[in-house]
């Protein structure tokens, strides 16, 4: 988490991860895929946050933000998994209903 500067490449990788994950979050029907995708997307953003141009020392605030962000996304993902398990038990399938108005 510390040491050398974080080059642009990381940030760009982060971008790709983020967009790809969000894409999966929307198109994948299986809820487990969606949850993992959501978590990955967040990680992508963290890479962007830590982006510090060559030369400059790593920005401690940015790293602190990432640490906080990680904990938050862990919490949300964990809860999401529990919710998914519960939903799977009640409805018998790990997918969302599409006729919610019924």
């Amino acid at each position, binding site marked *: 988490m510390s040491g050398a500067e974080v080059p642009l490449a990381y940030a760009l990788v982060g971008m790709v991860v983020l967009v790809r994950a969000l894409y999966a979050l*929307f198109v994948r029907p299986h809820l487990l895929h969606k949850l993992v995708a959501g978590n990955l997307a967040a990680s992508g953003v963290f890479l962007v946050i830590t982006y510090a141009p060559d030369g400059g020392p790593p920005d401690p605030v940015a790293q602190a933000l990432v640490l906080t962000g990680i904990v938050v996304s862990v919490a949300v993902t964990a809860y999401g998994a529990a919710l998914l398990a519960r939903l799977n038990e009640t409805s018998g399938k790990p997918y969302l209903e599409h006729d919610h108005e019924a």
Partner: protein
Amino acid sequence: MSGAVASWLLAAPVALPLGAGLIVPLLRRGRSLAALAAGAGVVAAALLLLAVRDPDGAMELAVGGWSPPLGIRWRADLLAITFLLSTAVIALTVALFAALHLPRAEPALAGRLWAPLLFLWSALNALYLSADVFNLYVTLELLTLAAVMLVTLEGERQALDGAMRYLLVALAGSTVYLLGVALLYHATGTLDLTLAAGAVPGAALALMTVGLMAKGALFPLHGWLPPAHAAAPAPGSALLSAVVVKSAFYILLRLWLEAAPDEHAGRMLLAACGTGAVLWGSLLALTQKRLKLLVAYSTVAQLGYLLLVFPLAVGSWSGPAYAGAVWLAVSHGLAKAAMFLAAGTVMHALGHDRIAELRGLAHHAPVTMLTLALAGVTLMGLPPSGGFVAKWLLLSAAFGTGQWFWALVLLAGGLLAAVYTFRVIGAGFGEAALARVPRRAPQWLAFALATAALLAGVVAELPLRQLQEAAP
């Protein structure tokens, strides 16, 4: 010393419900008492904030003694106080309703509602007070988790499904928002909106806005709201529809009117989304067969009105437009909470909420019927209601700035609201026995909220004037 006072007054609305929320799950009995006590404290703090308010400078506090850009600042300007206070009034009434209504109507839920309610409340207050974009991100996550938990309480498939939908959209939304935060930080070297004012890069603004629109169920990202809000227990739905979704609008106000005041093209886009919300939400509300879903779709529509403020708040008309939008948010909050609580009574009294089968309500639950009607008046924006004065101001701004198109949207929305409201009222007439005779006290609480929404149209002059002066 005033520093200490500021420290208490600003900390109380966040700390009291947060602390209570952490303790309540550990209590065996007296949960409702603890929750209500904390709530009363928040109301008191909010009232004091209003009382000691200095029109020339908002009360501020550098949390931890570190002021921005290094630290985080709490700031209680008129906008924050207005939202703090209206949220406090609504949340406390909803809590009282829950304490009186749930033990009989849904005993299984009685004890489990308090934790999410308190966390929700704390997160909202934290959100109102903060102008630090990352701090806002964390409060939004706290808010989302508490809100999703509220939705799951009923525990059957529909509730869990709605909750999951909500969670996923919120997850995507907050990720996009966070990316916006990253860009803002890299571009300005600060996370504080007041310091970044005027320098917010367009990309950051766009990303944060999209993220917030997802969290705030703003058209076209509203799809998750109705199933979620309709699935929650009545007090939960009331809070979600009345205040939670408006938190996103609150941040949008700060972003677009205070931090990035010159992004005019984007404002038009927001209002266009608002138009879509008003029309689409109202039309769907018309087609619903269940009362709770109808009320939920009306929320989608009413949120659309709020977005119209962005193109209208320009030049000499920014004052009226701003005051109108804020006042609309407040009165809609009161009315919508009243409506969902009334819907809860209906559920309890009839055992269902199918609109086609509401016969007998007018006779056996007249108070609830009247509550739905009075709340409806605010949704239609007719006098004597807070919705009317707010709409009057927005309409004036629309014609005054020569944007008559938005005026048409406001008027059409009012008519559609009338149609779906009177659809419910009309269904309540006629003689028929109820499954259960609902208790009186909770009904009067909902009635009180609806009446407050009406009073917001009669005693509005002073707050509206002050809001106009405080407009950015």
